């Protein structure tokens, strides 16, 4: 684990409530290496967003710690850039100002000209060079999220946190921005941690996909390795033999909704099980699909994907 750039150790979050404390998640352990793209998937309520807020420094864990680059994190920092689900652009600033205020905060010694040039460069990377002077209200949802992504990348954080960045976008826009994100990521070699609900999106983008079991007492149950070669793109990735093995594995996990039992379930300790579905014998994998309760759901999903 010492090689990990970001290391989440035995994290737990307890919310007090009238009917007793609710442990949303506990014993969460995550390791992210430098330059890795990690996605986290889990059902609503398992505490994904809370984990992200703790990583961003906007929330405090009940116990456990997060260590980044050898130091324990405390409070928000420019070292950790965040792309929020609802874009969170400041509506009274133009596109360029929304990015440049972040760049200026990151580089206080830069001149305004340099800040603006740097900011425009990143807006150019997401194809928004024509909208520098526009206010967020004049932009579509997809364009707003592009500004938000440009703002996060332009400050060159050590860790980039994306909280369901494409959740509110239509499928076409989502696809385009996913590829733009992949392009910027490969150019900048950022370390990225992203929440998503979209299995295909996770496979396209991630090196590892963390699967969370259901809350309360949610845990990171598995770390699924995505061995599909890069660079990836949406049309070619589905032809990779590993694609459906991975996809089936993820969908199986989500449909079966493994319920966590408090700490007694320590069959593999608190460290997530590392799984590489590509290496699983397809016969066993098919068998596994048949044993689950609703294989037709997974099958229907796959058929839908092929039709697309």
């Amino acid at each position: 684990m010492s090689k990990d750039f970001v290391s989440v150790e035995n994290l737990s979050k307890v919310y007090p409530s009238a009917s007793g404390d609710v442990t949303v998640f506990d014993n969460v352990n995550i390791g992210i290496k430098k330059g890795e793209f990690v996605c986290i998937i889990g059902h609503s309520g398992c505490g994904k967003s809370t984990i992200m807020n703790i990583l961003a420094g906007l929330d405090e864990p009940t116990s456990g710690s997060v260590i980044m680059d050898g130091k324990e994190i405390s409070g928000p920092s420019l070292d950790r850039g965040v792309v929020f689900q609802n874009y969170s652009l400041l509506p009274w600033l133009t596109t360029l100002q929304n990015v440049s205020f972040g760049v200026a905060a990151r580089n206080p010694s830069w001149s305004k000209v340099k800040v603006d040039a740097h900011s425009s460069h990143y807006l150019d990377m997401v194809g928004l060079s024509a909208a520098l002077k526009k206010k967020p209200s004049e932009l579509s949802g997809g364009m707003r999220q592009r500004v938000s992504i440009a703002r996060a990348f332009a400050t060159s954080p050590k860790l980039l946190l994306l909280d369901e960045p494409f959740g509110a976008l239509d499928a076409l826009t989502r696809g385009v921005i996913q590829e733009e994100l992949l392009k910027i990521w490969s150019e900048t070699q950022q370390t990225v941690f992203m929440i998503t609900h979209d299995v295909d999106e996770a496979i396209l983008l991630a090196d590892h996909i963390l699967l969370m079991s259901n809350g309360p007492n949610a845990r990171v149950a598995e770390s699924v390795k995505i061995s599909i070669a890069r660079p990836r793109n949406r049309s070619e990735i589905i032809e990779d033999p590993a694609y459906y093995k991975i996809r089936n594995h993820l969908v199986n996990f989500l449909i079966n909704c493994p319920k966590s039992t408090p700490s007694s379930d320590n069959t593999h300790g608190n460290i997530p099980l590392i799984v590489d579905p590509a290496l699983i014998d397809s016969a066993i994998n098919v068998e596994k699909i048949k044993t689950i309760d609703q294989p037709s759901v997974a099958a229907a999903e796959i058929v839908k994907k092929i039709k697309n």
Partner: protein
Amino acid sequence: MTSSINARAALLSLIILFIGLGIWEALNQPPPSTEALTEYELMMGSSDSEARVPPPSAVLGRAWEELSNPFYDAGPNDKGIGIQLAYSLYRVLLGFFGAAVIAIPLGFLIGMSPLMHKALNPFIQVLRPISPLAWMPLALFVIKDSELSAIFVIFICSIWPMLINTAFGVSNVRKDWVNVAKTHELSQLKTAFLVILPAAAPTILTGMRISIGIAWLVIVAAEMLVGGTGIGYYVWNEWNNLDLISVIFSILMIGIIGMLLDMALGVVAKLVAYEE
């Protein structure tokens, strides 16, 4: 249709104006006298035994007269309408901006700190409903200057809407925007000026518009009490002179200046408005 709705509204306004003025004019004509006026009747202007509200034609004539020379000064009881209005505006603006200087920073403090909100709220709730004129005797006693007392009364009535709106605007700034400031490591001061102030500015401006409206209402009453100069004093002085034409004319001027004050802040409100 959209271009013609303005034209039609203007036309309708004019029709309503002329009908209203027509009724007013018609209802207040003295009865024609049948015989020669006595000396007393000549002095009173007519043989009418009943006092009547002056007709609009008389008010318009007075308005023309007053507005063609608004700044004359012929002694303490005879100053032009422009001078009287300027005195009132000076007091209102001084009291209003004095209140803004206190209310906006204090509102920020209350909006950002739940502790301060809870601690100061009882005072605000008790002081806010007090009629500003109720402060007048105390102000006169403490300040010992009628001019400054009037300004203090404006100050005290302007402060509450601005204070409450600023606190409300600041405490309701979207959490996401504050989070953006936090993740960009902005200092408290920078967050206040770069994120919270622009985010709350439309709400603050709404408070300022309410305040200036109330201040303009209160100055008339305050000047009736303290006397000397100002549009409120002018109205009361003309009442004592039984010059109803001037009273009606000054009522109109109070309305027009109040509208202009609101419009001016409306322009500022447009500047700081944003669309989400």
